[in-house]
């Protein structure tokens, strides 16, 4: 029973990957002009024909997609075409992926590290002044677009105070402090909205959990409020929070386009943007495919973790 659930879940997610990448490849067909013309604006007709063959555009929509898929699963993500030559998508991604992964990890860690105590605390003090202050502040902050926060940070910390560099990325090998110095502003800009969203989710679930009988039961055992909050109420309330955190991972890897552009972090989001604005559709298709695979993997991990955090979900699955 359990096994068939996972098979079903996995199939569902694979279908998502398929639909997203196939949709991407259809975009190419929707273009009013031949992609070869876009990729090689100054090339000769023979060169263009060669390119059309190479990409598989002469095989029709399905044939084109299957050729791409075949190469994709073998790890060949295609090329980016310049007027002077080509560069493989893999080599670009080898640079961009680690940057995005770090950005995503730091953002999630910071957001959860701030949101969990805030959410637990404001649920505990629900309706009191502290709760209202936290809710209102976060609400206001979360309504400010992340690029606006980024630009304000640049203005204050970068331009005025000159404390932090406003551009570029530095790897660990350049020194841990250098690495973090370049990460602080992008991470903070991305985190503000997430902190508000996570706090809100956790607060709502905690408030519901704190009304449950088992909390009263825990209180009647003579446990301290702190123990009741963390040991008894937090765990059953955290499933939604972690699920939504996992769903955000895909978006953080590929969707931090504006932030990566503002800070010249040049991660995957920037590559997506570059592929779109440079009309590198094969590259775009491969990158989006990879992002959706990440999305799928994180989804599965969360499903597994949710079973540990809340065993009831395991039961539901067996019944499903």
């Amino acid at each position: 029973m359990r096994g068939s659930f996972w098979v079903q879940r996995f199939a569902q997610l694979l279908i998502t990957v398929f639909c997203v990448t196939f949709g991407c490849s259809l975009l190419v067909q929707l273009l009013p002009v031949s992609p070869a013309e876009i990729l090689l604006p100054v090339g000769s007709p023979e060169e263009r024909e060669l390119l059309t063959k190479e990409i598989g555009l002469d095989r029709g929509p399905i044939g084109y997609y299957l050729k791409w898929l075949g190469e994709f699963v073998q790890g060949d993500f295609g090329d980016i075409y310049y007027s002077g030559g080509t560069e493989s998508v893999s080599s670009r991604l080898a640079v961009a992926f680690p940057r995005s992964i770090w950005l995503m990890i730091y953002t999630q860690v910071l957001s959860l590290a701030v949101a969990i105590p805030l959410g637990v605390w404001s649920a505990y003090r629900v309706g009191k002044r502290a709760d209202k202050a936290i809710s209102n502040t976060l609400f206001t902050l979360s309504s400010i677009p992340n690029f606006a926060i980024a630009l304000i940070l640049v203005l204050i910390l970068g331009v005025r105070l000159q404390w932090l560099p406003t551009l570029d990325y530095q790897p660990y090998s350049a020194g841990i402090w250098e690495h973090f110095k370049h990460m602080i502003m992008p991470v903070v800009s991305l985190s503000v909205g997430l902190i508000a969203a996570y706090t809100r989710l956790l607060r709502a679930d905690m408030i519901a959990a704190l009304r449950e009988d088992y909390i009263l039961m825990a209180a009647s055992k003579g446990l301290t409020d702190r123990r009741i909050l963390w040991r008894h109420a937090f765990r059953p309330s955290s499933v939604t929070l972690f699920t939504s955190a996992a769903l955000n991972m895909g978006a953080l890897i590929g969707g931090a386009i504006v932030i990566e552009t503002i800070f010249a972090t040049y991660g995957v989001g920037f590559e997506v943007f570059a592929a779109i604005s440079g009309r590198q559709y094969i590259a775009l298709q491969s990158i989006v495919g990879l992002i959706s695979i990440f999305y799928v993997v994180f989804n599965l991990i969360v499903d597994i973790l949710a079973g540990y955090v809340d065993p009831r979900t395991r039961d539901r699955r067996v019944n499903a």
Partner: protein
Amino acid sequence: MRKRKYTIPTYFAFAWLGLAVFLAIFGSFLPVDGYQVIHGDFIDSPPLTPGHWFGVDSNGYDIFSGIINGARLSVFIAIVSVGLGGAIGALLGITAAYYRGRYDSFINSTFNVVLSVPNLVLALALVAVLATNVDINEAVPTWRRLVTLIISLTVVIIPILGRIARAATLAWSGREFVVAARSMGMRDRDIIKRHIVPNVLPALIAVGFLAVGVVIIAEASLSLLGVGIPDGASWGGMLARGRNDLEYNPHALYIPIIALAFTVISTNHVGDVLRGGLDRREGRL
């Protein structure tokens, strides 16, 4: 029942949105300079300069005129996209949830697939494809960019509001009065019109306000990336320009930020208040 009283922030949010909509409609009739008039003598003037109360940016554009003109574009685009996307999304979501079956699972999984692509990536890709000319070296005219932008943002909104409509319909179509209407032989179309739509609409409007915020931010992001309306006419475009000159002219940046933030805070707040009212109504049932 206790009468619900709006708080001061709610009145403020309504007032701000009212002002933004007013500017969006009547902005071009106001006795304000066109936003592209260059005030050469006032370049980089700070705010509170007489005649240029919000200052002038490093191109010589008056920021006050820019804000008013930007409201026109940003708010117009947002309202049209959310209106269109909401209508299409509601149609798909409501019919899917009402008729169920294969049609429903198709619609629902399509929504899920589209939602799994980050907002901005989707909008960017659509803009890129739709704004490609047959002759790729020819510039795309502004009206076409505008239409492209609106279509792309509409596509982003459809699954967001469509899912809300679907969930609300699922909840309502199980209620006794719908089952009763069905058992009395009422036509499906009339049931949807008389019983489902009036009940789903409030939830949709509440989330619609939040969606307006999403679209305004998305439009500004696209402009910041340089694929929005050219000439930097929207608030996002002003940001993109102001960004280049942070050091000497920070007000060219923070004034549009304030306008954007106020608008999004207001739409989010109004959406929240409406949703809270709905929860209370549901709670009493």
